[in-house]
């Protein structure tokens, strides 16, 4: 879901200083089960089984994975939800 701002509301000058979207990142931990992490990604984000498993494997093998991107407030809600499930998650600003 997204909304489009009327053109006159877009501040082009500040836009050039804004980095890319914010990210919700889930980090690997030695406790949470692979099956559980996949289940959380499927049920909370509504991701397909394949996408959820790929994200889980990225967390497991690469140490972390970006599970969502978008507005900062939205990413904070996702991270709060991940904490609620016991996953270790953080918010960060995406690359410019």
């Amino acid at each position: 879901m997204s909304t489009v701002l009327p053109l006159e509301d877009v501040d082009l000058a500040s836009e050039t200083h804004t980095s890319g979207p914010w990210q919700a990142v889930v980090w690997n931990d030695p406790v949470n089960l692979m099956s559980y992490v996949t289940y959380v990604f499927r049920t909370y984000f509504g991701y397909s089984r394949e996408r959820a498993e790929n994200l889980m494997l990225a967390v497991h093998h690469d140490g972390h994975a970006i599970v969502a991107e978008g507005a900062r407030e939205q990413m904070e809600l996702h991270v709060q939800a991940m904490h609620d499930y016991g996953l270790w998650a953080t918010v960060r600003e995406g690359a410019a």
Partner: protein
Amino acid sequence: MTSLVLDLSLIEAAHLTDLVQQFLSLLQDTVDEDAADDPAVARLVPDAYRDDADAADEFRRLTQADLLDRRRDDAALVATTLRRDGEELTPESIDAQDAASTFEIRLGPAEAAAWLRTLTAIRLVLATRLGITDDADDVAHPRFGVYNWLGYRLDGLVEALDSAP
């Protein structure tokens, strides 16, 4: 998600009740401001920003109390589902000949969600207490028995939810 049936042995249900009560006591002893003082509780409310302490503090201020309240509510709900005829089970109250008998628990969607989060949270607390910090840590030793048993039950619950119609 429909409701599902979980079969534990009676003695498992009693020990799980005990663990859930200990978890509730731990949360009870935690004043929200002090959550970070106990690493096991701190793991339940981790920093949301890695490189921005101010943002992490602000996020914590806005979310920590809610998250810990939810852990209490979830654990209390799990404890309720573990009652037998309204009575709380204790390992001491179970006769040896009844220990292995089946204790059937029916979970609706909200209860199943509370179970998932509570088993996970208790495993996180145990992992901190047991010093499990790395994927390579060997948890085969018997002192990890309770931790592994919770993992086995959690995995079974996830599987049951996954295959529920």
